[in-house]
């Protein structure tokens, strides 16, 4: 395998890393875009997704377990997110710093709870056998490139989520209402739209997507109480770079960061790649403070 194959391989890996960043960041971007709420417990929705996958696979082992785990984790995380939104965030939403602290507290509580229930060391989710192997290219210009099935699966999940979200926003009534609230919350409320309901739906949706991210992470690594912590920082970076609340911007930012970190890893260690990633985001924000796609929303003018 020559350096061309190494670079092609890393571009592919960059797409799979970007898919995880995207799944982790979409919920943050959605709730921030709509409610200006920063949910520090978002990483724990991801962790919950992983544990839901673990529990599902205990009940339904084998090849089908993972496919069942996806909806279970989505619904489980969405329900937890909904509970969090109705009991805590909707009461604090007008005070951003209090929301930040309160959700961070929730994050610590959820981490400790999972540590008590499942133990401090990670639990294990076995990837089903149909995800073993992958595509090995042996001929042509891409000879030596290998595309593991697990990473193809992750990319597929991210693409399906994006398609699903686009369909919901473009073609359903609730999507229309959410877009209305996003553009001008007060005017939307004045026309009779149930703003709180839109908030709740968006929050559930965002948490559910984080739950899906937890499932795909579980096939790559261990599910630990702190798994969400290691993805919350890149998720925040994606949201900042993406332009605060835009789905297209979030997607582009996730791709940029995923590819940047994968390509940086060809030349430097993972630790150094993380440093370069932060530098990249800081420099980017200097030149384009509004992010990849500037969101046109009255909410930001308040």
């Amino acid at each position: 395998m020559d350096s061309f194959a190494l670079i092609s391989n890393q571009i592919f890996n960059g797409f799979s890393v970007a898919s995880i960043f995207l799944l982790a960041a979409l919920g943050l971007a959605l709730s921030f875009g709509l409610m200006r709420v920063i949910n520090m417990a978002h990483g724990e929705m991801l962790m919950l997704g992983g544990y839901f996958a673990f529990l599902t696979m205990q009940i339904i082992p084998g090849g089908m377990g993972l496919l069942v785990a996806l909806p279970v984790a989505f619904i489980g995380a969405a329900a937890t997110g909904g509970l969090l939104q109705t009991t805590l965030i909707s009461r604090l939403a007008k005070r951003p710093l209090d929301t930040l602290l309160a959700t961070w507290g929730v994050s610590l509580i959820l981490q400790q709870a999972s540590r008590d229930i499942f133990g401090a060391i990670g639990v294990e989710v076995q990837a089903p056998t149909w995800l073993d192997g992958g595509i090995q290219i042996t001929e042509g210009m891409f000879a030596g490139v290998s595309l593991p099935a697990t990473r193809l699966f992750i990319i597929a999940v991210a693409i399906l989520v994006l398609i699903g979200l686009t369909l919901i926003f473009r073609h359903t009534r609730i999507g229309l209402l959410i877009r209305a609230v996003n553009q001008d919350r007060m005017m939307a409320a004045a026309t009779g739209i149930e703003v709180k309901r839109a908030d709740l739906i968006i929050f559930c949706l965002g948490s559910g997507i984080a739950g899906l991210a937890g499932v795909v992470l579980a096939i790559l690594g261990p599910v630990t109480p702190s798994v969400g912590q290691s993805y919350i920082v890149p998720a925040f970076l994606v949201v900042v770079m993406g332009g605060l609340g835009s789905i297209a911007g979030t997607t582009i930012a996730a791709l940029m960061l995923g590819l940047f970190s994968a390509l940086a890893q060809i030349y430097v260690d993972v630790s150094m790649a993380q440093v370069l990633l932060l530098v990249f985001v800081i420099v980017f924000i200097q030149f384009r403070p509004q992010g990849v796609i500037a969101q046109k929303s009255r909410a930001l003018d308040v």
Partner: protein
Amino acid sequence: MRTSSFGRFLSATAISALLLSACSGEAPSTSESPAATDASTVSVGILQSLSGTMAISEITVKNAEMLAIEEINAAGGVLGTQITAIVEDGASDPASFAQKASKLIENSNVVTVFGGWTSASRKAMLPVFERTNNLLWYPVQFEGNECSPNIMYSGAQPNQQILPAFEWAVEAGYQNYFLIGSDYVFPRTANLIVKKHIENKELSLAGEAYVPLGGTDFSGVIAKVQAAKPDIIFNTLNGDSNVAFFKQLKAAGISSAETPIMSFSIGEQEAQAMGPSLVEGSYATWNYFQSLETAENSSFVDAYKAKFGADAAITDPMVHGYLNVYAWKAAAEKAGSFEVDAVREAVVDLEAFSTPMGMVSFANNQSLVQKALIGKLDASGQFEIIADSGDVISPEPYDALTFPGKVCEL
């Protein structure tokens, strides 16, 4: 305009989350049984992490140390006095280790302390033990390159774990080495030594990669492994990262059969926690394996299981913790005193003594003279011992090739 200030607020949040996540995950310390030093008892400290990320490994070492103390007390104690163990929680945090060590020595007046796991915890405690002239018994393999009169290093020095593994690999005909480790002092120093020896033997280094502690993204590292096609991988990753590494390796279609992996931080307990099927067929080098077939080992394993459950996995650091207590007892009895300097002098003069891992003794540099064993993981999470160093190996804190001219003189 507001957009950019929101952006700044969010980036600040992300950065503070990064900083704060570094200090989360700790629990308040607990201390058991108050100090009681009267004529008939002597207090010793046990200082391991009972909470936090290292607790899973260190609690078992604490158990092994407590088991030794109970056995000694049941057999009449040391110098006719019973031992009182004062247990403190290092909470997986070097600063807590230093603070608890000073509390044990200065408030509880312990005569010696058994404990520590990470090199960071040992380095944090070292000044405390030197200042108070007390003695720490350290049970874990480490990177060497340190030598203090106030620490007894019973875990393997690099020449008792990593270099025997390297020599085994050289003999087995492996030419091209890839080094993967977590990004902290042990893997960095260990690999520095391995690289010097690779160069010395005129073999080749396929690559070297470090991942932050707890890191789970190995896509780049694995692409580099695929590009470099090493004969063997030396793995000094620690903790959860191992699970992610082995999973992603498997997903990328790299099997232990074609690219063997030699690990230095995976013992019986870690293998069982990770799921043995994931690591089956990979190698590890330690000074002790649970599968060792000796009478001393089977009675130790039975005693531990009787007390802590039949499923318990027994690991190398546990046995080092256990034998440390017995070595201290033997030294105190030889010296006829619990006084630190007398015990220190006596322990290096002890005859080789019998332990679950075989006959060992302490060298003049206060490290243990011991064998190295190479094991291959089977499907049940136990090691099949496939090679050993033959004779016991004298500990060398400073590798002559890597740190020429440095010697440990105590």
